[in-house]
């Protein structure tokens, strides 16, 4: 299967990124990602080419990743390991050393907001909008009907928007409906909002 290295290169961000949201430690995410590819490899080696061609690789890989991550979270050393746990601050991949401080803060904010969603919504929203899967791929990954995941994603996004607005509202010292003020007018607010979410 000479195409396999290319497949790993192609899908490693999806698999790793998904695993990463299930575990507080980057090393665990890497283990999960590695095991996902090994399983995929073993499965694909036994498939005839037509069957491989018919596979929806991304949804299928995401499903393997999720199963491994769930099992690990259930049985492993990190029973409650999930999004909402404090990340390992020494972790070089959390949430990305190459990012600027602003990007880092933005990511932490959204990470926290996403973590606040009910499980079903969080999973569906994450797969759709973080990992960038299509709806059918999300449905395949979660083993849930297409209609269900679509509505979970929509509801989840709506909740996130509300949560974000509530957050912003709380942080606003001078409420003015329809305020179209420019960014330069409230640098302090933005700073506070961002700093508050560094958990």
């Amino acid at each position, binding site marked *: 299967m000479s195409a396999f*290295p290319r497949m790993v290169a192609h899908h490693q961000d999806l698999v790793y990124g998904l695993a990463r949201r299930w575990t507080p430690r980057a090393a665990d995410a890497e283990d999960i*990602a590695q095991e996902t590819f090994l399983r995929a490899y073993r499965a694909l080696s036994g498939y*005839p080419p037509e069957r491989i061609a018919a596979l929806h690789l991304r949804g299928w890989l995401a499903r393997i990743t999720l199963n491994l991550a769930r099992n690990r979270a259930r049985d492993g050393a990190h029973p409650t390991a999930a999004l909402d746990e404090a990340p390992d601050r020494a972790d070089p991949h959390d949430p990305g050393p190459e990012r600027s401080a*602003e990007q880092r803060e933005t990511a932490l904010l*959204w990470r926290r907001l996403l973590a606040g969603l009910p499980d079903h919504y969080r999973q569906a929203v994450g797969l759709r*909008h973080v990992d960038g899967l299509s709806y059918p791929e999300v449905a395949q990954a979660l083993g849930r009907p297409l209609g269900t995941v679509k509505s979970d994603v929509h509801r989840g996004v709506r909740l996130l928007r509300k949560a*974000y607005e509530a957050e912003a509202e709380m942080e606003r010292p001078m409420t003015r409906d329809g305020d179209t003020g420019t*960014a330069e007018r409230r640098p302090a607010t*933005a700073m506070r909002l961002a700093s508050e979410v560094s958990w």
Partner: protein
Amino acid sequence: MRTGRMVAPAAGRLAAARDVLAGLRTLREPAPPSLAGRVMAQLGPVDSVDSYSRMQTPLWPLLVAWGRDGITAVGRADDPAAFEAEYRSRTGRPVRLVREVPDRLTRAVEKRMRGESVPGLRVDLSGLNEFQRRVLAKTMEIPHGEVRPYAWIAEQIGHPRAQRAVGTALARNPVPFVIPCHRVVRSDGRIGRYGAGGSQSKRAVLQSEGVDPDELERLAQAGIRYIGSDTTRIACFPTCRNARRITAAHRVPFRSARDVTGAGFRACRSCRPFPTAQAA
């Protein structure tokens, strides 16, 4: 996106945060550069995955599988799924269908089917135990167009009582045609089991080699196990090439090794129909 009631975002810092979808995209985490290398290191050389494909033969289309250590399996092409499942359970390795059997192997299988030897041909018998390997190795010695009884194999490998086990080992021969398990038959003249398609197939393969299965059965039912020549005074299995050369006028049938030696004949050194000690 409703932004009317929201705090005006700082340019840059909160611009992404304002849009839920853009915000979620900031959570993407690229895989560490070490990941792909770790995966490939775990797999070992990727080319080591066993492959199989279809090849046409004068008898039937076959499936031929090969790995790093040579030909690993041969089977009838009518049930690829069963072939794969059987392959996995025997070797513990997956096997993948590829476009074609490499020329070198095609020629090797064709030569083996014509009864020619193929120097350097490697057959990977992993998953088989020592007894099975010895049965198969002995079977390799049977020339094209000749047959031997199960009892002969058992005798030759030093397990004279293990005829049934010999039959089972041959029925599970992973590389029929390459190792000619079809050339081993029952002492009572019946054709016996055949892993690659049952007795009817076995008859067909033997006929393709010039063996007449009906004649074998007739001889066995008449109690005739060996044919001697009254000119050379040597006795053979009926299908031995030496026996086939004996003209009708000089053929002497024998029912047992004792009869052979009793008549002053000796066993052919080519087909070794019975151990010399047994006849003495």
